[in-house]
């Protein structure tokens, strides 16, 4: 019974087709649908160009994002140097590390982020910056360190920066004033501090006073 005999099926088929004859889709409805279709087809803005426009906008946004990412490096302003003048030194500098940006996962702790960015920055500097050395006198003031180069420059290093710096083994925390060799990047950034046996001889100033204020606590 599932499959009707051919004659049964043929008869039902012909009866059904005849039953359909008087019930055709109204012509007005056909026309209306075609008009609607043509209207969609001709709409210049329509969804097609909207789609293309949105694709273009998204493409531009992605390009801008990429460019800004290339321009902006999370390590770029990690190391901050604030420069001021003083009566005793030609220049006084305050070196500190800025708050690490949150480009890295927030699940990574602040200290870890800082260390990671610091390493990245050091690697970049090794490749891009000319490095030079200077003699200086180091004075440890609790956690903050002060470096002086005659009366030319005083550098104050923050505790966090000291923690990241490459320190020679002979530089021990809490030790008094000592002569050190600084490894400096072209932008003035301190890269490393090593103890040295050499002593820096500063030229006399016009006023005749001792050039290195640090000598006061050296002796």
């Amino acid at each position: 019974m599932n499959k009707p005999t051919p004659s049964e099926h043929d008869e039902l088929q012909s009866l059904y087709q005849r039953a359909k004859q008087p019930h055709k889709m109204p012509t007005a409805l056909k026309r209306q649908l075609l008009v609607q279709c043509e209207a969609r087809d001709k709409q210049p803005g329509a969804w097609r160009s909207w789609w293309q426009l949105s694709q273009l906008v998204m493409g531009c946004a992605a390009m801008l994002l990429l460019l800004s990412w290339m321009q902006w490096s999370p390590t770029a302003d990690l190391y901050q140097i604030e420069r001021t003048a003083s009566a005793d030194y030609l220049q006084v500098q305050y070196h500190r590390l800025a708050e690490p940006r949150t480009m890295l996962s927030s699940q990574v702790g602040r200290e870890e982020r800082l260390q990671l960015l610091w390493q990245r920055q050091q690697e970049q500097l090794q490749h891009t910056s000319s490095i030079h050395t200077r003699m200086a006198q180091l004075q440890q003031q609790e956690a903050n360190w002060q470096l002086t180069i005659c009366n030319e420059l005083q550098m104050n290093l923050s505790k966090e920066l000291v923690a990241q710096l490459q320190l020679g083994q002979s530089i021990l925390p809490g030790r008094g004033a000592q002569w050190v060799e600084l490894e400096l990047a072209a932008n003035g950034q301190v890269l490393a501090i090593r103890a040295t046996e050499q002593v820096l001889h500063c030229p006399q100033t016009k006023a005749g006073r001792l050039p290195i204020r640090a000598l006061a606590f050296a002796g």
Partner: protein
Amino acid sequence: MLSIPLSWAGTLCPDQLMQHYQKTGASKWLDGLIQHCGDDLYHFLLRQSDPALAQDICQQTWLKVMEKRHSFRADSRFKTWLFSMARNALLDELKRQQRWLSSTCPEQLAQPEVECSQSWPVARQQRFEQALRLLPFLQREALMLQLEGFSVGQIASITNELDETVKSRLRYARRFLQARLGEHDE
């Protein structure tokens, strides 16, 4: 203004027409599709509802064809897709109007009995149409879809039923029709 009918539309099957329409969105391809399937769909909906609702659902369905032309899968049959959308829309509307699976409509029952004075073919045609109207909704649906040329598998796909369920409905529908047609032959 509108190019109806298109001479070449008859040479392409609905699936080919749909592929062209899918790519271009041009009305000439939709025109071809309506020429091919429009009457069949309208008649199917009319038998399952009333003229106003049939027109409404028919329009909705063709608008969906325009809107969803990109979601049509090239490996499926256009007419199956079309009837499937129409059937879903019809059921939604009947449920909304609380007419879903109510027994046959009163206006259908009010159809005049076949007059004995009519010629045999005309009387048989009328008996067929009357019997078709008296069939339960789901059986009539299965039978009409089969008479539209859909296979059991395609009917199952359109109605979201198992093949066995469709076969059962077809069996009951045919038995009912044969009985109605046969009893007057005796």
